[in-house]
């Protein structure tokens, strides 16, 4: 493909609705896909936009009812591009100036439209570089634009400044994408990651849907990543050697934590009030252990009476909570605090992947643990940040917490209660942001959704999911058509804080030897060579 190919010219448009471009005769509509980038040469400035729709048109509407004899190649040649022509709809996003000031300030949001008959061209590599930032050697890039071989950058530093979301229906590559983002953050040291790894997708040898084994973060980055296992047995079975086995004391669970499990455990509204009363009754932190230790209906009734609660409610609550007994990582008192160790690792800049093992399928366990750990970690971060601000010392390393099945934490009912709702809303005040991964974004609270800085979405086809993801974005209608037409694999629409304009990318490969190499992974042999070289340098041999 030649660079800067002329595609056509502007025939109509509106800033809010986008611009219609009539294609030149030699440009086939079939060569233009939604999501492609184009530049428009206005009289005073250049515009940068994205193709959001492709239409066939004819100068004479009668042609539809009495079509010309196109079986004759001569007639077909003449008609093509004159009487019949292609039209594309372009959403202008940015203006690029060529003068010195614009070069310094970079692309600006578009505030007007190009004049009639402005020439539209395919965006060149240089334009794309100036819009998305060129990718220097060794810098992280997310993928390539559609049908182009240019690397586009997603700046991990910007990504972690606000919470971000990765969406897409099952099997569209959310996990691959999230893994890439984590790697980007890791590679460029933009933040430390804490990943609540529900399905063992991130730490060690995750399996793809096609049952292929790919490399996990630990394998790629070695000592920079620590695996915490909730289920050490399962980890060992999978030949993962966890850096730490997580045990959580009953005393660490607070009534608030139980309130979050309302939906998962099927608790009634009344039952949700019970733990607070229990906490008063058992005088503090031992309430859960004390309550679970109560056995027999009479003892329960007695307890109900003494806390002034309905007997049946307490009995039902007891029954429901007994699932906690089947979670071996919950112990009466943890020998060492998982939270402290996680914080210790994070402080040293080591990324933590919490491997749920078998409990990944147990949504109650996932919510309980993720919420509990995050709450403590967040409050520690908060303290540290506040202290740092007061003392003028260095703030703690930014922290990105990755959660899957986010709608279970951030639903409309729960967003106000969980720590994740707070983090999403507080944004980066305390240097903690979320990376939310979900296949059902319509289940996520609108307020939280609107606070997500960067959204990365693979194919979504549920109308409500699409609505919720695109809420509040300008050019929503146009982006909708782009989103609906994404390939079901390896394509994503990225928009929001970290990118200057919405972009459609073919995400880079993950899983091949070449991709690992590009991601900075070196086989043992390579590492040995390097260390030998370091030794040589050190001793000047």
């Amino acid at each position, binding site marked *: 493909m030649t660079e800067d190919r002329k595609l056509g010219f502007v025939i109509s448009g509106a800033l809010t609705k986008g611009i219609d471009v009539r294609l030149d*005769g030699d440009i086939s509509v079939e060569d233009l896909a939604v999501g492609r980038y184009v530049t428009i040469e206005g009289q005073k400035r250049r515009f940068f936009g994205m193709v959001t729709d492709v239409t066939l048109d*004819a*100068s*004479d509407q*009668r*042609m539809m009812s*009495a079509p*010309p*004899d196109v079986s*004759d190649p*001569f*007639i077909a*040649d*003449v*008609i093509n*591009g*004159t*009487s019949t022509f292609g039209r594309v709809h372009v959403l202008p996003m940015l203006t690029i100036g060529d003068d010195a000031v614009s070069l310094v300030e970079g692309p600006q949001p578009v505030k007007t439209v190009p004049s009639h008959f402005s020439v539209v061209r395919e965006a060149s590599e240089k334009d794309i570089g100036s819009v998305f930032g060129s990718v220097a050697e060794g810098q992280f890039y997310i993928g390539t634009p559609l049908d182009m071989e240019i690397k586009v950058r997603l700046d991990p530093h910007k990504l972690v400044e606000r919470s971000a979301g990765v969406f897409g229906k099952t099997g569209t590559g959310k996990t691959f994408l999230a893994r890439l983002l984590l790697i980007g953050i890791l590679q460029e040291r933009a933040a430390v990651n804490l990943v609540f790894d529900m399905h063992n997708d991130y730490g060690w040898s995750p399996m793809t849907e096609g049952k292929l084994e790919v490399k996990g973060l630990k394998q790629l980055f070695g000592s920079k990543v620590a695996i915490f296992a909730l289920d050490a047995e399962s980890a060992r079975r999978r030949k993962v050697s966890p850096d730490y086995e997580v045990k959580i004391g009953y005393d660490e669970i607070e009534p608030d934590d139980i309130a979050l499990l309302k939906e998962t455990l099927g608790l009634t509204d009344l039952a949700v009030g019970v733990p607070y009363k229990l906490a008063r009754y058992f005088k503090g932190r031992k309430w859960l252990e004390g309550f679970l230790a109560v056995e027999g209906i009479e003892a329960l009734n007695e307890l109900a009476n003494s806390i002034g609660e309905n007997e049946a409610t307490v009995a039902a609550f007891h029954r429901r909570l007994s699932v906690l007994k089947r979670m071996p990582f919950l112990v009466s008192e943890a020998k060492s605090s998982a939270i402290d160790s996680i914080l210790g690792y994070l402080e040293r800049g080591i990324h933590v992947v919490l491997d749920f093992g078998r409990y990944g399928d147990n949504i109650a366990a996932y919510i309980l643990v993720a919420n509990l750990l995050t709450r403590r970690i967040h409050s520690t971060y908060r303290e540290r940040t506040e202290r740092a601000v007061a003392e003028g010392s260095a703030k703690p390393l930014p922290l990105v917490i990755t959660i899957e099945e986010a709608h279970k934490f951030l639903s409309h009912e729960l967003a106000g209660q969980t720590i994740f709702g707070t983090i999403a809303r507080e944004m980066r005040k305390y240097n903690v942001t979320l990376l939310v991964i979900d296949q059902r974004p319509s289940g996520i609270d609108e307020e939280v959704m609107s606070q997500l800085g960067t959204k990365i979405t693979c194919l979504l086809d549920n109308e409500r999911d699409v609505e919720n993801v695109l809420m509040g974005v300008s050019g929503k209608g146009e982006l909708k058509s782009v989103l609906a037409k994404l390939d079901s694999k390896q394509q994503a629409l990225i928009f929001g804080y970290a990118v200057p304009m919405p972009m459609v990318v073919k995400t880079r490969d993950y899983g091949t030897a070449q991709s690992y190499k590009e991601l900075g992974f070196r086989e043992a042999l390579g590492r040995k060579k390097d260390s030998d070289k370091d030794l040589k340098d050190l001793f000047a041999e």
Partner: protein
Amino acid sequence: MGSKIGEVIKSSTESFMAECYELHIPPSFGSLVRTREGNIDIYAVVSGASTASIEAGRRPIARGRGDVNEEDIYLSNPQLEKLMRTEFTAMVVGHGDSGKFSQYMPPRPARIHSFVYACEPDEIAMFNQSLAYLSVLVDVPERSNELIAATLRNAAVSYSEPREFLVRAGKELALMIAGDTNRLNIILKKVKA
């Protein structure tokens, strides 16, 4: 320079009529001819030709009952050549001044008795670099479709890649009559034939 084929006998800004020097040999329908007014070359497309008696009231009569060949009639009646004449009309489509072509009406019509020349292929190709003149032919009230098709067919012969020229011209035409696909279709079929 092109061969001299006739002389202007009636002239107006948009067209002229010329009498051919050779009876029965008018330039082809749709071919490009040139005449001159002062310094200006006037280009026109032949839009029709006719042969008739010199005197309007006297019509020719059939003479060949006994002859085997048509040519024999003329051989045995040499006066016939003098009693009849061939005329053609041409639509003015542009003019040229020292090698520069303008595809719009010349400031003045050709003078009576100006010589008319058939254009050479090179000149035709040069003139056809722009096809804006087709708009004049589009507006001709009679036989316009035929005329356009014939003009393009004639011009195409001057090109080494006639099809390329025809597609270019067709596209130009498609834009000129964008609202009338049916007509475009008819013309294109005639162009190709």
